C-alpha cells in the first residue's frame, strides 16, 4: 500500500473514533443530560 493509502485508512479510522466517542458521549455519557434537556425543552421527551 502506498503511504497515501495508509494515511487515508488511518484518517478513516480516526473519523470512526471521533464519531464513536461523540456518539457515546451524547447517548450514554454526560452529553445525554444535555441532549435530554434540549429534547425536553422542545417537548420531545
Amino acid at each position, binding site marked *: 500500500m502506498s503511504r497515501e493509502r495508509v494515511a487515508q485508512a488511518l*484518517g478513516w479510522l480516526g473519523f470512526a*473514533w*471521533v464519531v464513536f466517542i*461523540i456518539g*457515546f*458521549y451524547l447517548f450514554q455519557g*454526560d452529553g445525554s*443530560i*444535555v441532549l435530554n*434537556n434540549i429534547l425536553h425543552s422542545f417537548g420531545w421527551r
Partner: protein
Amino acid sequence: MIGTILNNLLDLLLLVALWLFGAGLGRVVLARLGLVGSLTALERLIIGGAVGLGAISYAVLLVGWAGFLSLLPISVVMLLLLALAATQARGVLADTRAASFGISNLSRRPITALLTIIMLIAAGAALIGALAPATDWDPLVYHLAFPRLYIQQGQVFDILFDHRGEFPQNSEMLYTLALLFGRAGLAGLLHWSMAVASTAAVYSFCRARLTASRTFSTLAAAIFLTTPLTLTQATTANVDLNVAFYNFIALYAFFVWAGIGRVAAQQGEINPASATPHSALSAQHSALILTGILAGLSYSTKQSSVINGVAIALLIGWWLLRAERRGVMVVVKTLAVYGLVTLATLLVWPLKAWLASGNPFWPAAYGLFGGKAWSKADNDFQYYGYSVLYGMRYPAGTAWTELGTSQSQNLVSAYLLWPWNATMHSGTFDAGPRWVHSIGPLYLALLPISAIIGLVRRVSARSPLLLLSIYALVYALGWLFFLHHMVRFFLFALPPMAILVAAAAWLLMGKSIGEEQAPARGYAYAPIIAALLGLFVLLGAADIAYDQRGNVAVVVGSQSATDYLNLHAPGYPTLDWANHNLPANAKVLMGWGALGYYLDRPYIYAEHAPEYVGRYINRPPQDFRVRLQQLGITHIIIAYPAQFAIREVFPPGFVSDNGPYTQLISPPALPWKVYVLK
C-alpha cells in the same frame, strides 16, 4: 434598575482599566528585557498584562502583609505603579489599536465571523454569572472570604484555621484590591476576564506561532472558550482560570524563548531588526527570564502549577538537547537561570507560609516539612483521601453525591480508563450534578488522534505541536499522580489541549498547520468533522446562555441583590440575621459547612484545619470551652448539624439548643443555626 446597570458598567470599565494598567506595567518589564520588538501587539498586551497584574498582586500582598491594608497606603502604591505604567501608555494604546484591528479582520470571512459571534454569546452569557453576586462554595469559603477578612483586619494576616489559608494567593490579592475599593463585582469580573484573556492568548499563539490561518486560530480559541468547564468557571470568583491563563502564558513565553514564531515574522508583525534587545542581555536570555517570571507567577496563583514549572523545564531540556543539539552543560546552565528566576518570582508565598506554619507549602508536603495546626490524619484525609475520593476509586457513573458510600473499584482499571471515565461520567470526578464542570467529548475524541498522527509521521523535534503534546502529557501525568482527581483541574492545561484538539481536527480534515502537512487530502468526512466541532462549540455557548437566564434579573437590577442572595447563597439569611443581631465585638466559630464571606463579624472555621481549634472530640467539653475562650470565640454558626455529625472538633454534646455550653439564639426559620457560647 438604572443604578445597578451603571454600577455593573462601572465594574466593566474598571476591569478594562485594570488590564490596561497591567499591560502598561508589564510593558515596562518587556521593554527592560528588550522583548518589545520580539512580540506582536496582541502578545505585548496579553503577556504584558499577565506580568503587570502579577506585579499589582505582589504590591497588594507586600503592603497588606506589612499591615497597611487600607485605602490610603494602597492608593499611594497603586498611583506610583500607575505613574510607572503611564510611561508606556502610548505603546499600550497603539498595541490596543493594532490588536483590535487584527481581531476586527475576523468579520471578513463567514466562518471566523460565525465562530466569533458564538464566542461573544458564550462570553456574554458567562459575564451575566460573573456580574451576579457570588454564591458558589469556593469563593464564599475562601477566594473572596479571605480578602474580606484581610480588609477587616487591615492586614494580610496568616490564616491557619483553614488549610487553604497559606496557599499562594495572587488572584485573591487582586480580589482584595477590588473589595478594598468596594467593588465586589469587579472581583468576579477579574476571574471572567481570565477566560477571555486565555481565549485571546490561544488565538494569538496559534496566529503568531503556529499558522497564518485565522480560521484555525479562531477555531482553537472557540474550542477552549466553549468547553463547559471554562464557561462555568468564568461565572464565579474562583482562581482556576487565573491558573489556566498563567500556565499557558508561561508556556507561551517558552515558545518565544525557543524562537518559534516565524509566522509572525513573515506576516511582518514582528520586525526581526527590532527584535534585537536594547539591554545587555541576548534576546534568548531575556525570553528565558520572562518564561521564569511567568512560571513563578503561575505558581503564585496555585501550588499545583509546580507541574507547569516542571513541564516547561522539561521542554527547555528537550529543546536544547533534541532540537538544538546542545550539550548537557548548556542545559544545566539554562535550567539554572530559569529555575532561579522562577524561584525569585514566587518566593514570597512559600516564605510567608513557612514563617506562619514552619512549612513553606503548608499544609501540603506535610510528611516532609510538618507544620502547625495540621496532623497526619488531616494530611491523609485531605491530600491522599480526597485524591482518591474523586473518580478513581469509584465505578464510572457513580453520582458525585454518592462518593464515599459506594464500593471501591479496581484501581488498575481506573488508572487505565480515566480519560474515558472522566469524559463520559465526569460526575464521578467532582464535576457536579450537571455537565457544567465537564470537559466535553472533543478532547477524548481528538487528543489521541493528534498523538497518533505525531507518532506515525515521526514529526521533527522542533514541531510546535509536539512541544504542546509533551506539555499536555506531563500535565496529565501530574494530574494523575499529584492532584485531586477533579475534572476541574484539567482547566490548568486546557488552552494547549484545545490547540491540540483543533490541530488534530485540522489535520484529519486534510488541512495543513504551518509547516505541518496534512497526511492526505480530500477526505469525504471532513465536513462531518467540521459540523461536529461546530455543534459542540454551539452547544457550549447555548448551554451557558440557558444556564445563566435566571441571573439576568439581578444583573439588570429588576431583582435586588438581597433577594437574589436569600434565594441562591447558602445560608445567607442566617448570616444577614447574624450581621444585624450579633454584638459588634462577636467572634464566630463557623462549623460544618458554614461559609464566611457574607458574615461581617470576624470568624474562624472549625473543620477546615481542626488542629487549629484543637481536636476535643475525646476530651472534656470544659477544656473545649476554655480553648474557644482563648481564641476569643463568642458564637458558633453551624450549617448542617443534622447531615454532618459534629465530630473531630466538638466534644459530643457540646453544641445543643439549650445545654451547659451553648444556647440556640437564631429564629427557627433560618437555614443555619447560630449559638451563643455560655
